[in-house]
Each structure stands twice: as structure tokens, then as C-alpha cells.
């Protein structure tokens, strides 16, 4: 009964999934390395510290947002509202800046968490599909941000400006914050009960329910975290811009974040969360854009190449191997 596969095709069938599995696990690291190598060899001034810093600062909001997105996607969900939540955070920050930058930051982050809770409640308790629930938020929250702050507002809060532009040991503070958040999310996913419950629910919801996991509460929490991180990204982006711009801040960042997660090899079908790879995914897309621009290839190329990479990444993370629906009966 063990040797049922025919011999000739068997080897190919075994080999191919291995290649796919490798690409899924390490493809993004290899791609980042290859791009780095290419740039070191062919791009002038690539190794300048200032260039590195610029790239990192630019990618920071995407990295932070995609950390939350990775958690949501790990539960088989999706969060389209992150860009709008960033805008809301920008609006709230500038509104409450009079009380000092720290209270403003806290209010903004709470606002983001509340929005996440709204989306999470719709998903977990009402049973609305994640796409629609967070689409409603995408539309409504962006509007709310614009109602609160109708146009771009510049500000002069030294504390907030310092948050956005100062560096420690040559590394921008916001990059350090993103790194710290990455470590925290990594810890949550790997070392906490909650983190394990998140992947279990994404991997098999009915088994998780039968195992007594608090499925609804975990789902709600995941969306709250996503909202919270998006809000934080919004505050940091605002601090860097030295202006609050609810109209355009975070537009389409949900697409970049989903791309980062997917390119990092986290399957959209849930049950697996790859935190570092997600960060790598965001870096890859940033590096790609930078490389193409440095070599005088227009933005249009970047987007088309991104499209191809997304398709390739998802194709590689598709369910592989023999069809498991067979067997039995």
C-alpha cells in the first residue's frame, strides 16, 4: 500500500514541491540578496549611508502596517482599512497636538485601535466577510479623517518633529521603532498563547473551536492590533512629513502591505505567519522600486514588475502536492 505512485512521474512530483517549498520559504531572502548584490555592483553610490537611510525611512510605514496585516492574513482575513486608519491617526495627532505630542500620539493610537475593533467586531461577531467589513472602514474612516482635518496642516511640535527626523547612532528613530515593533510582533507570534491561537484559527477554524479556543475574541484582537499598528505608522509618517495630510496619507498602503505579506510567503489561506519574511517582502518591493528608479526606469515599470512578483509569489504559495481531498471513502 505504501508504493502506489507510479515510478516515473513520482520523482518529478516529489521534486517540484521541494523547489516550490524552498521558494516559498527563502525566495524573498534570496531575491533581496540578489537585488542588493546587483546594486552594489551596478548602482553608483548605492552603498552610501544616506541612500540606505532614505530607503529605510521610506519603507518604515509599510513595514509597520504589514506586521498587522500579516497577523490578519494569518487568520484567513484581510484588512483594507489600514491606509484610512493612518489618515485618521494623522488627523487626530494634529488635533490633539496642543496637549503635547505624546498625548496626541496616544489618542491617535487609541483611535486606530477603536477602528480596528469595529472591523474586528463585524468580522468575528457579526460574521461579515473581512473584505467588506474593512472596505466599509476604508471608505468611512478616510472620510472621518478628512472631516476632522480637511486639508494639509503643518505643525511645529519639536517633540513630534524630533520623533520623525532624529537619529540614534546614525539610525533614524522611526526605523528603530519599526525594528522594535517587528521584534515585538515576532515575540507575540512565536512565544505567546495568543500568537499560537491566531495561527491555529487560520489553519483550521473548526478544529480550533472544537479545541476550545476563544476564536471570536482572538479574531477581534487581531484586527485591533492591525488598527493600532496602522495608527502608529500614521503618526510616524506624519512626524516625518512634519505635516498632517489626511487626504493622501496612507492611500493604497493596504495594497503595499498585502503585497509585502504575500511576497514574504505568508499564504492568503491562513494558518501561517512569517514575520521576518513579511518585513523582507516590504524591503524587496522598496529595493526593487529604488533599483529601477536609479537605473532610470520609470515608475510604470516598477508597478508592472510588482504585479508579476505578486503573481509569482502567490503561485508559489498555492496549495501544492497531491490533492488531499481524495483518500478515504
Amino acid at each position, binding site marked *: 500500500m505504501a508504493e502506489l505512485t507510479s515510478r516515473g512521474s513520482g520523482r518529478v512530483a516529489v521534486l517540484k514541491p521541494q523547489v516550490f517549498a524552498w521558494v516559498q520559504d527563502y525566495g524573498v531572502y534570496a531575491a533581496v540578496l540578489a537585488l542588493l548584490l546587483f546594486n552594489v555592483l551596478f548602482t553608483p553610490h548605492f552603498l552610501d549611508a544616506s541612500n540606505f537611510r532614505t530607503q529605510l525611512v521610506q519603507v518604515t510605514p509599510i513595514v509597520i502596517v504589514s506586521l498587522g496585516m500579516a497577523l490578519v492574513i494569518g487568520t484567513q482575513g484581510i484588512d483594507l482599512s489600514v491606509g484610512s486608519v493612518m489618515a485618521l491617526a494623522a488627523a487626530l495627532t494634529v488635533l490633539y497636538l496642543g496637549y503635547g505630542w505624546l498625548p496626541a500620539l496616544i489618542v491617535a493610537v487609541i483611535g486606530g485601535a477603536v477602528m480596528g475593533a469595529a472591523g474586528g467586531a463585524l468580522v468575528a461577531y457579526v*460574521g461579515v466577510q473581512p473584505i467588506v467589513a474593512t472596505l466599509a472602514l476604508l*471608505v468611512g474612516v478616510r472620510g*472621518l479623517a478628512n472631516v476632522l482635518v480637511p486639508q494639509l496642516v503643518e505643525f511645529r511640535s519639536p517633540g513630534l518633529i524630533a520623533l520623525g527626523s532624529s537619529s540614534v547612532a546614525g539610525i533614524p528613530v522611526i526605523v528603530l521603532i519599526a525594528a522594535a515593533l517587528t521584534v515585538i510582533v515576532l515575540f507575540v507570534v512565536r512565544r505567546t498563547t495568543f500568537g499560537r491561537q491566531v495561527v491555529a484559527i487560520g489553519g483550521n477554524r473548526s478544529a480550533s473551536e472544537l479545541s476550545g479556543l476563544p476564536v471570536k475574541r482572538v479574531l477581534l484582537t487581531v484586527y485591533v492590533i492591525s488598527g493600532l499598528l496602522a495608527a502608529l505608522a500614521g503618526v510616524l509618517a506624519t512626524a516625518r512629513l512634519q505635516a498632517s495630510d489626511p487626504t493622501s496619507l496612507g492611500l493604497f498602503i493596504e495594497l503595499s502591505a498585502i503585497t509585502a505579506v504575500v511576497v514574504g510567503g505568508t499564504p492568503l489561506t491562513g494558518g501561517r505567519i512569517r514575520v521576518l519574511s513579511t518585513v523582507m517582502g516590504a524591503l524587496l518591493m522598496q529595493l526593487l522600486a529604488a533599483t529601477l528608479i536609479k537605473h532610470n526606469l520609470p515608475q*510604470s515599470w516598477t508597478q508592472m*514588475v510588482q*504585479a*508579476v512578483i505578486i*503573481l509569482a509569489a502567490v503561485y508559489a504559495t498555492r496549495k501544492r502536492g497531491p490533492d488531499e481531498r481524495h483518500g478515504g471513502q
Partner: protein
Amino acid sequence: MSDTAVSETFRREQVSRLLQQHGAVMVLGLLVIVGSLAFDSFATPANAASVVVSSSFLAIIAIGMTFVIISGGIDLSVGSLFVLGGVLAAYGSQYGALVALLLPLAVCGVVGLLQGLVIARTGMAPFIVTLAGLLGVRGLMLAISDEGATTYLVEDRAFAALGQGEIAGLSYPVYITIALALVAMVLLQRTGFGQNVYAIGGNEQAAALMGVPVARTKVQVYVMSGLLAGLAGALNAARLSSGVTILGIGLELDAIAAVVIGGTLLTGGAGGITGSVAGVLLLGVIQSLINQVGSLTSAFQQVVSGVFLALVVVAQRLLSKAQRLT
């Protein structure tokens, strides 16, 4: 279960079905009445025309999206295709009206075909495939417009007239939209293709067993969505006399919102054209009403739309629970 209980559940089920199918039309009617009573300048022909005209392009896209969503899929690429269609139409207008119309249709149709093939053949999620489509098409649009720097002007008069000509105070695109909606209704309700779309969205496996050509129907649906998005873009270019490269971004989300508000389930298998058109008009009327209240900015429209969308999906969940009889 006693007879009275049966008839009671049956009545509740019928009411909820009615609400689901025609809720958007009812709310639309209600809003129009309220608006007319509250604001003198709301129920004027000019205002009505402006709402209808500005809604027509989104309506064309929403018609295609309705097919896609009923089939159980989603199409995120329509916003980009709308822009691409506009740019191609304006570019093509230098070779005459026919090229101006056919070029965007051909290109957008091919994009839809490719997406449909990938979705039907590889089994990849429509969300991701069309997300890649969104990015790729936007890149294509930027590539042919010098990174958005070049705005082609519509050279051909006849083509421009397609977007600007009026009958009885309403421009041609409105009539085109109405015609398309009628054709789409017949397609959906009265042809084998329409039945196939409902069937694969309702239960793909069962549909396959009942002899529905699942893959072919999926491809057809995405081609249709691409064609309609391209057409909407072309008509918009004709109306504006130029292929504007910055409009239409995010339009896919408006279209999805309108379709969902119109009572089409995002899970597929149920919905209709009337609802989607009502959903589009509803968004337009909300905007118009907010404009009537002078003190509110247009951002309020988004807030109201978002809240409304959330209410609709919650209501749909509750209604579909009420309809589940044993």
C-alpha cells in the same frame, strides 16, 4: 411546528428576501423624498441630471462588477482599467472615432481575458490576481502616458460627441448606461450565461455537476468586467475631451461598495443589476444631499457611505440568517 408558526416564518422569510433584493431601491426612494422635502434645490431637473450623469460611469463599471461578484469573484483592476481606457481612447481618437472606441475595448478586454484565464486555470484567488492586475494596468497606463505627464486630448469630434451630446438634458452616457443595464439584466436573468453565473457563484461544485462550464463562465465574466471598465473610461474621456491619468483611482472600491449596497452578496450567487444601479445612485444621492447642506464638506459623504455600507452588510448577515429555514 404548528401551521401558524410555519406561515409566520414563511412571512418573515419573504419580507427579508424582499428587503435584501430591493432594499437599496427603497432606501433610494426614501432619500429622494426626504431630500426633496428638505431642500428646495434638491429635486430640480438640473440637480437630478448632475447626479445621474456623474453616476453613469460608475454604474457601467458596477454592472460588470455585479457579474463578477455574483460569480463568486471580485475584480480590483477596474479602476485602473477605467483610467487606461480613457487614456487609450484619447490616444486613439487621433485615428478616428472607431479606433478611439475599439482600442480601449480591445486592450481592456484582453486584460480581463488574461485575469480570467489565470483565475479559472490556476485556481489563484481573484482578489490577488486582480490586485496584480490593478498594479500592472496602472503601470501600463503610466508607460503609455509618459508616467502620467502626457494628457492626450480627444481629437475626434464624433467621439467627443459620444460623451458630450445630450438628449433631453441628459448626456449620451446616461442613455448608454441605461441600455447596458437593460442588456445586462436580460443577460443575467434570461440567458444560459446568466444562469451559469448565478450557479457557479452559488455552489461551484454543484454547478460543475449540473453541467455548467465553470472555467469558461469565469473567463467570460472577467472579460465582460474588463470591457465595461474600458468602455466607461472611454466615455469619460469623450466627456472630458481628454484622457486624464489621475481620475479613477480607487474606483474599484466604489464599484464594490455600490454592488454590495445593492444587495449582491459578496459570497456570490445572489444579486442583481437593479440593485447595483440603485447602489450607485444611492452613493450619488448621498453626495448630492451632503452638498445641499452647505456646512458639510464632501468628506462627510465618505463617512456616510462607509457607515451605510457597514449597516448594509450587517443587515445582510441578519437577513440571510432569517432566511435560513430548516
